[in-house]
């Protein structure tokens, strides 16, 4: 397999990525696709803010506004934030536990392609008669009344990409349970691995209710059933429950890995071990558990009754306790450390107060009685952007700077990185801080315009100015990426100089088998332990031997493509004669290729010891 290091043509590279089952390349695919959708969702956000910059604006129509708003939320959550985090999980987690690959490389690729085709399908709605317009929550009472196929794009697209996410979650769980290197006990796992683990467990239990909800709504819209049709005995509240039983854990699926990224960055740049490691693990697990008990805080105004509201209010407030533990642990990690202010550390330091503010408004919203005032106002918009941007997006930006050298072997420019940070940080608070007050002053959420003379002009204008700062920050980031890629100055194993965990013990980017010999883990922060004893790298846990690797495969792409085709058939079945045949053809492609996969044996291949030694001779330069 020494052909691996040779230069390849463009076509060969594309084919390589279309068929890859290597977690590091899948990570790159997730970053590219997630980054693309992040830009799309960001442009949608800009359109929203331009429309709301001045009163009585007619930049977009009311109906168009609904579509943009819906697609912004849906894209950001499902197609940008989650895939970008999945990118980091794929790139880093297997390295952190000292594994050569994930447990199910094939399923891992399948998960990516399902997400990708689902996302593309959803976004094609823009060109095929209009996007969904019932909000990212798609409440049944709205979505059943929505004409055209927008909502069908939402349902089918999310169903496909959701299946991919579920597979990704199972894969990460099994990888962490079964593939840890010798000595890597659970309580020695880095926190990013722990948060990946808990987030994956949440995916496993939270996505099925969404799957069911989407099926029911799809049946109602496309196959004439009556789940949410009140006249036939249906009940739209069922959708709200199913959606939020998924939806609340979803926010922890997003924010726990973000916590994980910061829990890696802060110790590295404080040059001090993470304060309260076991309480961090405990808090992560507890947050994951409580995350399933609080969904009805999104439904306080539905009328579930005072007892239900009270229970869910108290449960929600309880989550503030483990979250508070985490905040203090991060602070105490920095306390007395010798801090290096790099770009990732900037984000980490800014994250703490920003996220904390989102947490505080969260506790305010959790008081059921007060929520009647906040509900569906800009106060809520401010709240969830403080947690989602101040937490998740900051973490993604921090992770990009932090892990870029590990993934691509070259450092992003620090000066440009800090410019991005300041633009984004200022823009973020400009945009969203004032929205708390806009909400309290009575501006409803999901509204396409507002009137003059109600005291909302200044606030909205400030908010729009802030959004342009964030757009500028993103442009600088893209420039940074281009410059860095062109320059391509190679870095060594541990480019930040203070890496503590296993991923910094191997070359950047790692060889495709990651570890020539599995490392022996002797404690928390294994690389740091070795460094403290004056050693350069990890002690191997095994003699040099053959390495077993999985074969590349085109089948994941084809399976996902089949569902993509079938989705068109399902949607147009009632409008056109070709709908049904296309549905059947699509399903045949999917099930046919699954069948092919199961009858065709795939044992993978071995890299022989001699080849590994060969590569040693050639030196690290390759």
């Amino acid at each position, binding site marked *: 397999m020494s052909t691996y290091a040779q230069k390849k043509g463009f076509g060969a590279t594309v084919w390589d990525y279309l068929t890859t089952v290597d977690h590091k390349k899948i990570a790159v695919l997730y970053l590219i696709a997630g980054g693309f959708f992040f830009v799309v969702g960001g442009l949608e956000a800009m359109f929203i803010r331009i429309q709301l910059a001045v009163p009585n604006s007619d930049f977009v129509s009311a109906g168009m506004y609904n579509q943009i708003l819906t697609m912004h939320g849906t894209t950001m959550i499902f197609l940008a934030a989650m895939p970008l985090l999945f990118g980091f999980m794929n790139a880093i987690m297997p390295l952190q536990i000292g594994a050569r690959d994930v447990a199910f490389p094939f399923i891992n690729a399948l998960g990516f392609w399902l997400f990708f085709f689902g996302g593309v399908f959803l976004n094609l709605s823009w060109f095929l008669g209009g996007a969904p317009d019932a909000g990212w929550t798609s409440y049944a009472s709205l979505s059943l009344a929505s004409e055209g196929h927008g909502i069908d794009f939402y349902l089918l697209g999310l169903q496909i990409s959701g299946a991919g996410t579920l597979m990704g979650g199972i894969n990460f769980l099994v990888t962490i349970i079964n593939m840890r290197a010798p000595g890597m006990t659970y309580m020695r796992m880095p926190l990013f691995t722990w948060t990946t683990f808990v987030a994956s467990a949440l995916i*496993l239990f939270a996505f099925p209710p969404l799957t069911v909800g989407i099926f029911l709504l799809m*049946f109602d819209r496309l196959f004439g059933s009556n*789940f949410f049709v009140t006249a036939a005995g249906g009940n739209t509240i069922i959708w709200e429950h199913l959606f939020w039983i998924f939806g609340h854990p979803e926010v922890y699926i997003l924010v726990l890995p973000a916590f994980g990224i910061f829990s890696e960055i802060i110790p590295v740049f404080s040059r001090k071990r993470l304060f309260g490691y076991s309480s961090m693990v405990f808090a992560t697990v507890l947050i994951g558990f409580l995350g399933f008990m609080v969904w009805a805080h999104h439904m306080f105004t539905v009328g579930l009754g005072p007892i239900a509201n009270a229970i869910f209010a108290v449960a929600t407030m309880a989550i503030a306790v483990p979250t508070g533990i985490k905040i203090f642990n991060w602070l105490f990690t920095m306390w007395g450390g010798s801090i290096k202010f790099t770009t990732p550390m900037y984000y980490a330091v800014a994250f703490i107060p920003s996220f904390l503010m989102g947490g505080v408004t969260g506790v305010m919203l959790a008081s059921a009685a007060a929520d009647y005032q906040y509900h569906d106002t800009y106060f809520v918009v401010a709240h969830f952007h403080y947690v989602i941007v101040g937490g998740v997006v900051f973490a993604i930006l921090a992770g990009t700077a932090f892990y870029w050298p590990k993934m691509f072997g070259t450092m992003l420019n620090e000066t440009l990185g800090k410019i991005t940070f300041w633009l984004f940080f200022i823009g973020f608070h400009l945009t969203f801080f004032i929205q708390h007050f806009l909400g309290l002053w009575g501006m409803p959420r999901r509204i396409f315009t507002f009137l003059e003379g109600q005291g909302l002009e200044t606030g909205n204008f400030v908010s729009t100015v802030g959004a342009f700062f964030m757009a500028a920050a993103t442009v600088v980031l893209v420039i940074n990426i281009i410059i860095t890629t062109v320059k391509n100055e190679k870095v060594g194993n541990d480019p930040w100089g203070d890496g503590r965990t296993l991923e910094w013990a191997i070359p950047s980017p790692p060889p495709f088998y990651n570890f020539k010999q599995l490392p022996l883990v002797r404690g928390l922060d294994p690389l740091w332990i070795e460094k403290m004893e004056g050693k350069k790298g990890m002690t191997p846990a095994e003699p040099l031997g053959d390495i077993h690797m999985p074969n590349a495969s085109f089948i994941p792409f084809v399976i996902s493509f089949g569902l993509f085709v079938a989705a068109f058939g399902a949607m147009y079945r009632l409008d056109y004669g070709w709908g049904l045949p296309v549905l059947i053809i699509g399903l045949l492609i999917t099930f046919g290729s699954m069948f092919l996969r199961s*009858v065709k044996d795939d044992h993978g291949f071995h890299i022989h010891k001699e080849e590994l030694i060969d590569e040693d001779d050639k030196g690290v330069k390759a």
Partner: protein
Amino acid sequence: MHAEEKMTLEKWPASPEKQTLEAKNKFLGFWLFLGGETVLFASLFATYLALKDKVPGPDHALAKDLFEIPLAFLMTMILLTSSLTSVYAMYHMKNFEFKKMQLWLGITVILGFGFLALEIYEFYHYVHHYGHTFTSSAFGSAFYTLVGFHGAHVAFGLAWIITLMVRNAKRGLSLYNAPKFYVASLYWHFIDVVWVFIFSVVYLMGMVG
């Protein structure tokens, strides 16, 4: 130990389904998948309970009009038996008796088809005698979705087991395919457990009103 290796009775280990790392991963991953499936069915059960007997008018059939215990009981018995026969199959798999394993799997498949046939008859009966359809009421939608999802799982399980039997008919057992048989049988048991809940929640509770 190499998965592809040709096996003999002497070499056959005690837990052939868990010998290689791939097999262990598959085993664990499948259990987790079943955890997710459990939540999926739980959501469907909750929806069903919320919409049970919710019909647009008094002329629509309710649960107590529709369900007949003898048929549901017969279906339950068939499916439970098929779970037992799949246990026999796995017993022979562990003893490296390929022919006997195939035989018991074959019996499992036949019972599975019997179950599906009865289910189709049942649905046909409701549609033609009671006008109880997927689109006639929220109750109908919820009923056919819950029971139909289970039926689709049975059909998928049958296709899976048949594929495995045909694919491996000529080459016998190995450490490569033993976990595949084992996992398929786990799936079959899961389907069976779900049915027990359907029998209790839909049929028995439907009878008492």
